[in-house]
């Protein structure tokens, strides 16, 4: 028997009140932690994704969309940059690297990121950390695939496996309805003429590329060139069939279509590029260059492309989200304050029923100070239970929010609590509970023993 037994019994005697009071603290702590986690992890995820590139070039409508699509693989860009334009831009500035990328295909809902070998040798996902392989090697031929760590985890693929890619990203019914398409979701077109072989798996980077399947851009062009050629053949067949009504040439034509497209069949319009990762030449060991703003201004003057500085766009995004962030954190603080009030009320109201118990404990030898500490400790324990529950809820909640962010925005966020921040929130909740417990503790301290032992004299 110790003070904790008395507190435990007291809390158990008011089970419902204890549960709801702890829940209100848990909600406040969870809300606060999820917001802080998502803010910090979100920012970290955004900062990680752009790596050591200085500029992103695309044909998207605005720089932020360009960053979200081409760096965070949120959605395939709607408009590509023509190859001729790409070559022209490549000559216009002193680039350290100028890497073409193409997003459009997918595998099991994961984006396929088509690029060149320079993506692995020159672009770094983290400004100071280059790509590292978990297993296998980087691709060096067409139709080879390197898996991001999460993509490998989610698909279960390993080096040596062969897969077919799906044209486009699968759309949900909601997305189709937005586009005015109703009825059944159409089956996606699988490029099953070409098998891609998994040759390597990357180490995790914490960026969006972790959930992508990286492949050579020429192979991706060949896939689409094959589609183009097949479509042309079908149109030609249809036209001929119209001319020669009633005559079936299907067998002959099928034979013709079996010929696979090669690099030699590519025409300029096949070589579509949806984004360019670019880095201006810098001095060795330096990340910045006086040339960056000059090149940025020069590129921005071109109305046919959109140029984005990832760091600026991320800052812009966080400025937009920041005010919402502050409102939400203020709301969480209000919830925390109200949970403090609910602790105060729960304990204060219980004092009326506990006066006799307090008087008996005093008769048994408990000092007024000890009674004060018991009630205060009870309040702190309520806060601690709520805070512990809140941390658990926050971790689960953050995972849910992160998976929603991934599903809706394609943004990979690894929710984690900065230990110090977590400690601040938990200690803050417990302290708040302590403050809320002060008034009931004072009431308990001042409880008259003589008055509350039923007078019989």
């Amino acid at each position, binding site marked *: 028997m110790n003070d904790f037994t008395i507190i435990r*019994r007291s809390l158990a005697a008011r089970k419902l009140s204890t549960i709801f009071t702890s829940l209100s603290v848990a909600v406040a702590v969870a809300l606060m932690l999820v917001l802080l986690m998502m803010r910090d992890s979100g920012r970290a995820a955004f900062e990680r994704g752009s790596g050591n590139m200085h500029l992103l070039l695309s044909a998207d409508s605005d720089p932020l969309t360009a960053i979200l699509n081409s760096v965070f693989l949120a959605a395939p860009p709607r408009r590509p940059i023509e190859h001729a334009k790409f070559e022209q831009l490549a000559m216009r500035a002193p680039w350290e690297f100028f890497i073409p990328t193409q997003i459009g295909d997918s595998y099991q809902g994961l984006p396929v990121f088509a690029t060149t070998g320079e993506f692995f040798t020159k672009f770094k996902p983290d400004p100071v950390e280059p790509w590292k392989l978990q297993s296998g090697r980087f691709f060096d031929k067409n139709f080879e695939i390197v898996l991001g760590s999460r993509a490998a985890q989610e698909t279960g693929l390993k080096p040596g496996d062969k897969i077919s890619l799906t044209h486009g990203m699968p759309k949900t019914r909601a997305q189709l309805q937005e586009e005015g398409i109703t009825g059944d979701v159409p089956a996606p077109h699988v490029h099953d003429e070409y098998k891609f072989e998994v040759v390597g798996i990357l180490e995790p980077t914490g960026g969006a590329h972790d959930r992508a399947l990286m492949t050579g851009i020429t192979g991706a062009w060949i896939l689409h060139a094959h589609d183009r050629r097949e479509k042309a053949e079908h149109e030609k067949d249809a036209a001929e069939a119209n001319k020669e009504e009633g005559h079936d040439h299907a067998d002959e034509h099928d034979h013709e279509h079996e010929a696979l497209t090669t690099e030699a069949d590519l025409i300029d319009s096949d070589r579509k590029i949806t984004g360019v990762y670019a880095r201006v030449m810098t001095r060795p060991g330096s990340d910045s260059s006086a040339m960056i703003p000059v090149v940025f201004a020069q590129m921005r003057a071109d109305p046919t492309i959109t140029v984005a500085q990832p760091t600026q766009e991320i800052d812009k995004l966080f400025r937009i989200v920041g005010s919402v962030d502050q409102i939400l954190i203020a709301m969480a603080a209000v919830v925390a304050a109200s949970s403090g009030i609910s602790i105060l009320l729960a304990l204060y109201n219980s004092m009326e029923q506990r006066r*006799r118990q307090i008087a008996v404990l005093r*008769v048994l030898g408990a*000092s*007024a100070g000890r009674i004060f500490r018991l009630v205060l400790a009870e309040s702190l324990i309520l806060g601690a239970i709520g805070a512990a529950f809140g941390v658990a809820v926050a971790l689960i909640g953050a995972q849910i929010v992160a998976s929603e962010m991934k599903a809706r925005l394609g943004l990979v966020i690894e929710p984690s609590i900065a230990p110090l921040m977590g400690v601040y929130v938990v200690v803050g909740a417990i302290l708040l509970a302590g403050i809320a417990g002060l008034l009931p503790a004072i009431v308990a301290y001042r409880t008259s023993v003589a008055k509350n032992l*039923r*007078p019989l*004299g």
Partner: protein
Amino acid sequence: MSLGVTCLRFRHGTELMTAMPPALAIQDLHFSYGRDHFEIVVPSMQLAPAEQVLLTGGSGTGKSTILQLIAGLVDPQQGVVRVAGENMHAMRGAARDRFRGAHIGMIFQTFNLLQGFSALENVLAALMFSEMPKLSHRARARELLQSLGIARPEALVETMSVGQQQRVAVARAVACRPALVLADEPTASLDPENSAAAIELIQRTCSESGAALLCTSHDPAMKERFPRVESLDALRRPVIAQVGAGAGA
């Protein structure tokens, strides 16, 4: 204040004459409260160690108040109350509470057991604030409850019969081996048969544990059960009566 001379008898039969302070010694106690200045005046009163005294008086004569004065729950305007030789009211705050927990046991008419706690925990609660070594608490509580016939010490007190609750209350009062047990109308809510059994239990338990017993009651039938009876009716002002001046049963 005079010290009582006590004869300690050991199990092996030897006797040791030693000077022990009385379990209770009151000197010039003045206490008044309320709009009508209700007053209690006790010029002198003593209880020897292990002595059992009945304080009688009608309702409103201040029986409970005098017990609260003795327990140090209420401060008198004047006078000294010594329990086991210690001046209760000279001690302040936590020291007085600790002393009360260690040296005074209290039994109430309604038992005042801690609801939501088991019988064992009610006894342990008394030991918790005592000076007895922590390791001995559980064994002491179990032993007491067993000797008082509590078969299920882990049962919550609210699930027990009135008789069992009273036994738990008695066990709690003597758990710390107090010098003095104050019983405030312990039989007021019981029928005559149970009342006799209850007072017998209290007296026997106090005797066994060597505690003096000061029991208040307005039941005339109780007088026969105590070797010494004091009346409080005379204590209300303006009449000042002297308690302990030999007003026997």
